[in-house]
């Protein structure tokens, strides 16, 4: 594969597009005091974004004409969630999740 100038520019452009939205809030918030309602809104973001990311992975949007659950992932998700609830441990949940996923893929 050859690297052309336009490709390098494309990569630089992509880097900027992902970098700017990450740093601008950090710079902006320093000079502006956010109103309470915005802070309240922001307080809901972590739970929302994490549940959205989980949902994104549970849904299968490609293989059928309608959106359905990605069954192997869902079957793994349920015990993983239970393990997370019991252990409240990030590392145990990740290791257990990977093992269960491998087992589910082996069976299904």
């Amino acid at each position: 594969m050859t690297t052309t100038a336009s490709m390098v520019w494309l990569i630089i452009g992509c880097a900027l597009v992902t970098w700017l939205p990450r740093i601008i809030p950090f710079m902006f918030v320093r000079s502006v005091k956010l109103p309470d309602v915005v802070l309240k809104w922001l307080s809901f973001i972590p739970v929302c974004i994490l549940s959205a990311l989980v949902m994104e992975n549970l849904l299968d949007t490609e293989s059928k004409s309608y959106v359905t659950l990605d069954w192997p992932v869902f079957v793994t998700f349920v015990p993983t969630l239970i393990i997370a609830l019991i252990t409240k441990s990030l590392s145990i949940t990740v290791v257990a999740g990977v093992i269960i996923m491998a087992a589910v893929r082996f069976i299904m």
Partner: protein
Amino acid sequence: MSLTLAPHFTRYSMLRNVGFGTLLTDETFGVAVTKQMQRGKLHGRWMDGLNITAYLFWILSCVAGAFLGQWVANPEKWGLDFALIAMFVALLVLQLSSVSKNKIMHYLILIGYMMVIMYGLSYVVPSHLAVLLATVIVATIGVVTDK
């Protein structure tokens, strides 16, 4: 994500804040907001440590993957793709467990909204856009329905 974390770092210099933003990823965001909910405060050094550790391991894992990849022809078979999902599940649980008892019902209802909205949006927009839109919509519902 940056906007959610940024208010906790206003006491640091502009340069440090640019650093926090530059190295922030989905994963370090998840870990940082969980820490913030449990302890109520975030320190710049801790954040730098988290970000730099994450990036170092990212780079090291990529290098390791390049060398070891030939022996793992099909990583999905070993469930490795689920590691990230499991991490999001665990972070979500940790977030919820630090929410006070009288608010937990409100959060669970919001997650219910999230499921419906994510499902609906998945028909009309690509999944990464669905994540952003659903988050904005449900956080707004959260503010409106909060007592």
